């Protein structure tokens, strides 16, 4: 479902006493949190403390050992695919295809009907329409994955190191896009080593620590 720039309906995503285990000691246990419209959550912590795992749990790409995860949209329980967009640290683009070909594919999947060139203009890749993905820099691929996020138009953004590899303008762009998303009633959960600053928005910080 695409909201075409309109305000998102009410939604929430919550963890209740969630424990995640990869076979050894639990990565975290009894984690409870909830995300509401307009909220920006910054996941902080050293490498290996579970930032990415929280994002993947939220996206339904991991299952918890214990606890309950719920996704609610417009008053109904829903699957994560209706509620979240996930920007992982992987490129998830096909190197031999061009930017235009990849975005056209995702536009068809997400019923995105706006001109792709306008989207590329917005993310600073307007001259790369015919470029193959394999010729793009890491920062340009990061911008491209933001384009897919905008196409998906889901209320909850899950961003894993969104500023990685980006120049100063790119980092500003990410913050502007997040601010616009929050203004539409969306929410974002961001795992990042770099600070996230959105003017006029309070950032909820969640500090993850290694178990001693």
């Amino acid at each position: 479902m695409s909201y075409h720039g309109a305000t998102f309906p009410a939604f929430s995503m919550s963890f209740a006493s969630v424990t995640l285990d990869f076979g050894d000691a639990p990565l975290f246990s009894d984690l409870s949190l909830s995300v509401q419209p307009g909220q920006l959550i910054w996941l902080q912590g050293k490498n290996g403390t579970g930032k990415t795992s929280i994002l993947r749990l939220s996206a339904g790409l991991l299952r918890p050992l214990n606890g309950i995860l719920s996704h609610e949209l417009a008053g109904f329980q829903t699957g994560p695919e209706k509620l979240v967009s996930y920007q992982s640290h992987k490129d998830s683009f096909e190197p031999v295809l061009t930017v235009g070909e990849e975005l056209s594919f995702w536009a068809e999947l997400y019923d995105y009907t706006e001109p792709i060139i306008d989207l590329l203009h917005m993310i600073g890749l307007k001259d790369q329409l015919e470029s193959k993905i394999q010729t793009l820099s890491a920062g340009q691929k990061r911008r491209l994955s933001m384009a897919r996020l905008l196409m998906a138009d889901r209320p909850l953004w899950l961003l894993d190191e969104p500023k990685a590899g980006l120049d100063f303008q790119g980092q500003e762009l990410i913050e502007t896009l997040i601010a616009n998303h929050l203004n539409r009633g969306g929410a974002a959960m961001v795992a990042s080593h770099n600070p996230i600053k959105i003017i006029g928005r309070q950032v909820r910080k969640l500090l993850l620590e290694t178990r001693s």
Partner: protein
Amino acid sequence: MSAMLFRDLRIVYRDPRGWLASLIFFALFLSIFAIALDGEPERLAENAASAIWLGTIFSLMISFENIFDRDIQTGHFEQLSLSGINALSIVVSKMITGFITILLPILIVIPLAGILFNTEPAASAGIMMSVLFGAPALIAYSILSAALLAGQRNTGFLMILISLPFIVPVIIFALSGVASYAEVGFWNTGFQALCGISIIALTISIPAAAAALSTHLE
């Protein structure tokens, strides 16, 4: 689904190493088989169907071994699952792409293989028919094994172990159909059984492969 298929075909067109490797393997396998039979015309003709069938099976196995790995490693599957597309569409798209880019070239070169193996044109046509009728079953079993083993390394041997019990009946009915083709024509019991096996294989393997693939998305 059409968007997925179009994308998969475009990737194969841009990066043809996969289907070219499979075709080259097929040609090399048949050449070595022919040399091993001392190039005796009668023995070559007798063994043509067996050689072509073995070459087809191994070529398909090699091509399908890592068919899902690229998408898993790049995170493409994760994004697909979050877009709401189901694993069934992914599997069907890969099957059709495999049929067009791997099996069709093999079918096209079978008449040339017939010349190498000194077979009559009618016998070559019979072998082509058998591969055409049996190929959906081969592709279905290959894709099921590939989905079960997706994301793991060095899976070629395991793929053969998993698929072999299912592929043996396909080979038996294919060779029986080829043997009857000259007398009875293409609608003989061997080919009928082959069509039946292909339908059953597709019906079972597509949802099973989709279920196996879904486990990689969690």
